[in-house]
Each structure stands twice: as structure tokens, then as C-alpha cells.
């Protein structure tokens, strides 16, 4: 199987879907002539031309709303945010319009649109550019939120997202774009709303997604040395949440740690934790532990920034705690 970068997987998904469906187009800041701020859309302008690869002014509210309107009228826009942090200035369009139009129109209109871009803490970008939007959008009925952790999942999930008839919030990470992984040459898609058990184990369930999956898997490896056999679930879709896969795993392991980069209070992990207690309270042998970012704005300083975030060591410590070790 060919090994490709995460960014290439995203590009392949977009290119294939654009080849397949004339109504799909890509729009965003610097996606065309500049070839993408992070080179995800490199070469796409040359291939598809300016009708379908559209450079926008810095007008997020404007072009997101425009995309939603176009989606209501039969197109399938892919809107790239240079960073999900910039979606705050467009949030009215995403939350009030993209999420609600189908409902408010009694099902007359659908909004087949994908919003995608880098989410979360990158490298010393400071408080304004390091937002984790996972929980912000996952709490909104009417949206689908996808957050892949590797190139294979990214391609399969993005293709499905583009074909999906609902608005999809697709969360990538600037820190993953260079990651390489095997992606088959043949066409494939992956279902939305289905988690993936990335590693089976019997002692504890570690739940994570996106960039933090690396810490979860690394921690699972480290825990082997301590004779703890961890199962690691990659949620892949945050809304709708695959509660079944989570419950099945916890019924087997009786212990759970949730790892994410969001803030602790009202963060994404808190929402998942509530589901775990709803379904699995009686199955648990220990309170669930969460590993997440510290409850502070993102600092610029390199060391403070590392201190703020989850890492494999913090995951190992949490697992040992729930295993009473």
C-alpha cells in the first residue's frame, strides 16, 4: 500500500470527489494561487481551475454563509478554514444557519457542506490561534463533527463527509499534516458515526481522537511494561457519538480514561464522560479519569504550552490511577 502524508490524503479525497461530482468545489483563504496555507490544496487550482478552487477575501462569515446558501441550492461546497480558530468570526453562520435550516424548514432544505481545517493547539501560536472547537460544534444538533487521527481515516471520512447531505465539521490538525500512513490506491470510504478500536485490550479503555490518539497509543505501549493491557478507541466522529463501541469496551474492561486536548470544564471529554456514566455506571470498577488541557488560555511560551497539554506520561498516570496501581 502506498504511504502518503495526512495532507495528501485530504487532497486525494477532495480531488476524487471533485472528479466524481461537478457540484463539489473548494473555497477558502489562499486555497488557490497560494496552493493552501498548509499546502493541503496544492495543485488543485491547476487541475480544476478558478471556477471550482476559489480564493476568498478574509471574510469568514461571508463565505461560510455563501457556502451554506449555495448548499441549500444544490451545490456541495468544501470550505477551508485556514485555522478552526478563525471560525469564531463565522460561528453565527455555522450554528444558526448550517445546523438549523433543515429543521426549521421542516426538511425542505438540506445543507450538504463540509467545513474543514486545522483545529487545536499547534506550536506556540498563542491564545487566539490554538482553539479546540470539538465541543463547541459537537454540542450543536444538526451538525456532524468528524476528527480523524491518521491519513487512512482522514481520506475515507472526508470522502463520506463530502457525499453527506448534512453539514460536516471536519477537524484536522496542523500538527498531523506531515504524518504518514498507508492509504490504498483503490477507492474506499468510511462510515460517519462509527468509532474504531485501534488496539484491543482487557484492563482499561482509553478513549481519544484526532491528534491525542498518538498519546493514547503511545501510553498503551508504555503500559505494557507495567503489565496493563489497554484497549484504545479512536472515536473518529464526535457527533453523532458511537456510544455502542464505547459501552461494549467498558463492559469488558470496567475502567476508562478519556484523553483530549480540550479544556476540562464543559470540554469534549466532559460530554463523553456523561455518556459513559449514563450507559456504564454499574460496569465501572473505578471513577473515569480525564486527561485534557489545563484550564487556562493557551500560552505562547514553549514550556508552558507543553505543560498545558496532554502527553503520554499524563495518560499513563491516569490509567494507573483508574487501575489502582
Amino acid at each position: 500500500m502506498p504511504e502518503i502524508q495526512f495532507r495528501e490524503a485530504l487532497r486525494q479525497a477532495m480531488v476524487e470527489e471533485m472528479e466524481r461530482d461537478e457540484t463539489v468545489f473548494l473555497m477558502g483563504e489562499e486555497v488557490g494561487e497560494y496552493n493552501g496555507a498548509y499546502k493541503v490544496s496544492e495543485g488543485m487550482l491547476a487541475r480544476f481551475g478558478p471556477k471550482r478552487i476559489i480564493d476568498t477575501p478574509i471574510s469568514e462569515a461571508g463565505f461560510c454563509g455563501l457556502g451554506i446558501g449555495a448548499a441549500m441550492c444544490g451545490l456541495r461546497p468544501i470550505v477551508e478554514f485556514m485555522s478552526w480558530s478563525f471560525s469564531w468570526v463565522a460561528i453565527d453562520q455555522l450554528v444558526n444557519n448550517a445546523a438549523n435550516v433543515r429543521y426549521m424548514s421542516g426538511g425542505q432544505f438540506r445543507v450538504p457542506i463540509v467545513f474543514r481545517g486545522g483545529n487545536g493547539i499547534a506550536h506556540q501560536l498563542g491564545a487566539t490561534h490554538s482553539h479546540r472547537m470539538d465541543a463547541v460544534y459537537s454540542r450543536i444538533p444538526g451538525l456532524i463533527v468528524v476528527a480523524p487521527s491518521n491519513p487512512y481515516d482522514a481520506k475515507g471520512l472526508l470522502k463520506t463527509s463530502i457525499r453527506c447531505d448534512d453539514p460536516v465539521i471536519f477537524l484536522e490538525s496542523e500538527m498531523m499534516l506531515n504524518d504518514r500512513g498507508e492509504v490504498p490506491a483503490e477507492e474506499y470510504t468510511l462510515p460517519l458515526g462509527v468509532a474504531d478500536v485501534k488496539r484491543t485490550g482487557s484492563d482499561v479503555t482509553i478513549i481519544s481522537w484526532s491528534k491525542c490518539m498518538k498519546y493514547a497509543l503511545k501510553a498503551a505501549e508504555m503500559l505494557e511494561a507495567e503489565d496493563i493491557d489497554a484497549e484504545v478507541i479512536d472515536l473518529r466522529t464526535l457527533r453523532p457519538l458511537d456510544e455502542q463501541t464505547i459501552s461494549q469496551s467498558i463492559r469488558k474492561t470496567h475502567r476508562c480514561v478519556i484523553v483530549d486536548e480540550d479544556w476540562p470544564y464543559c470540554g469534549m471529554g466532559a460530554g463523553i464522560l456523561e455518556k459513559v456514566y449514563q450507559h456504564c455506571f454499574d460496569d465501572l470498577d473505578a471513577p473515569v479519569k480525564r486527561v485534557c488541557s489545563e484550564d487556562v488560555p493557551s500560552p505562547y511560551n514553549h514550556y508552558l504550552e507543553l505543560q498545558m497539554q496532554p502527553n503520554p506520561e499524563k495518560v499513563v498516570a491516569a490509567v494507573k490511577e483508574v487501575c489502582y496501581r
Partner: protein
Amino acid sequence: MNVTEPTANMSINTMEQPRVKRQIKAKSKERARELLRMMMLIRRFEERTYQEYTRPGQRIGGFCHLYSGQEAVAVGISAVFQKGKDYLITAYRDHGHSLALGMDPKAAMAEMFGRATGCSKGKGGSMHFFEVENGNLGGHGIVGSQIPLGTGAAFALKYKGIPGCCFTLFGDGAINQGVHNEALNLASLWRLPVVFIVENNKVAMGTQVERASAERELERRGSGYNMPYRAFDGNDLDEVIEVVGDAAERARKGEGPTYLVANTYRFRGHSMSDAMKYRSKEELERARLRDPIILYEQRLLQQGIITTRDSEEMESEVRQIVDEAVKFADTSPHPEPEELYTDILSEKYPLHK
């Protein structure tokens, strides 16, 4: 100021050479020398920042945007800035404005090194310089986000009866944000003492003005709000002082906001990772002919306000100041781990943590 007629938007090709003989607008010869020196300091600071950012073992991180080429705008504003009364707010390309308003280069460099001695204690970084004592309301990372904040500062001045104004700066890309419209209308509707200044460096990241604004005469983007608007040569320090000074006086007298477009050019890439494929070498070379520092230096030389020796001395002075700033930054401590949890709220609430 009677400037409701828009002037042509000067492109880099058609901008005429500024008049060398033009009258010096600085308050004194001594002040003119200081302004030149400040422009030199900013240039040196930025070029050194570039070196520090790109050298191995990178000590500056994150996004970093250099001001080289645009110095006359910030320094011209500083010449009319009334400390203690006025405010200034800008975007993430904020090193020049901060130095011009009087920030110690040491605190500026230390911030980029992420050190506890930085102007924001290492928590803000290059894009988020602030200095309350100088009326510096900061650098702001989200494009356009500072435009309503600057309008709010002006509101506070008016509310408190202080005859100051707020210089509210943003890029040519930022005018396409929604808040630009909202803030301009509020400012004019309530006659707030704001001087809006678009630093038109011709490009937003890799997007030329023509590809982002339907109206190419950018000053006209300030029309329709019942306030004066005009474009001017932002590379000519004396023109900046004159035009911005008039607008500031209007604001301070309670006559409301003005919308100004400073035509300038950035010599460096948008940020550090920019290959600049969107512009030719020739364009850059042409722009360098209108280097604001050289233009002002020549004017002062021709008018006998400085000698070549003065100018050489200034160059070596600023070089030394910047060297010291780097040394200071490099030897300053990183913030203590506890600093992660400070400056979030005004005090510890009993149930927090």
C-alpha cells in the same frame, strides 16, 4: 480636514517620488533625528528577528510577522501621539508600533523568546504585544478583530471627557471582515474619536488587494459612513505626520472619526514561512526604491538636518541596542510553571481549582 473627495489609490508603480524638499513636519530638528533613528531601530529589530527566527535552535516560535518597509506609518503616528491621552491598537504585525510608542526593545525581544521579562510575560508572543503605560492596546491575532476594540477605546475617551483619540490600525485584508463595517458605522454614528488607518501593503498573505476588494480605491471603503476618508503616501514620514495629525486633531476636537489608507509595502514575507511566489523580484526591487527610511534620511541630509556621519552613528547605535535586546532576551528566565495559571481572572475565587 476637507477630504471627502477620494484621491487615486497609488499603486507601487505610479507612486511618485516624494518631494525631497518637502517641509519637515517633526516638531524640531532633534525630533526629526529621533524619528529617523526610530525607523532604523525598527528595521534593525525586524531584520534581527528574522535571523533569530530562522537560525537553528529556534528561540522564537509561533507566527511572526515583520514590519520592514512600513516603518513610516507607525513612527509617523508616534510623532503625533499624545502619551497619556491617546491609544493605539493594531494587528499581529505589531513590533514596529510597539517600539515606536516607546516599548523597550529588550521587553519586545524577550516576549518573542517567550521569556518572563517579555512585555506580556512570555504568554502572548510576537502577535500579542501590549503595553498599558504607553497606551498600547496591543497586537491582535484575529484579522479585523481589533477594529471594534479601537472604537471602544475611543468610546471610553469620549465617555470620560478625555480629549484623546485612538489610532486603530489594520491591514488591507482586514477591511473585508464584517466587523469593519460595524465598527465604522458605530464610530461615525456616535462621533467617536477614532483614526482608522488601513496599512495598505498591497497584499494580505498571498492575496493582492485587487483579488480581495471589489473597490480598488481602498479609501472609498470608508465612504458611506458620513466621515472623511482619504489615501496618502504611507512611506513618506512627513506625509504620515501631516495627514494622521490632522485626523487626530479632528478626533480630539470632537469632530468624529476619519478613515485613512496609508499606501505602503512590506519587504518581507507575510510571516516566516512565506515563499512569496505571489510577487516578482522586480516588484520588490521597485518597492525598495521607495524605502521609507532612505527617503527620510535623504530628506534630512539634503536639508542639512543630519550629516552622513550622524546617520552612520545612528545605524551603529541601533545595532547595539538590538544586540543588547537579544542578549537580554536570551539570558532571561522562562516563566515559572505556576505562571500558566496566573493572569486569567483578577483574583482567585474561593471555589476555583
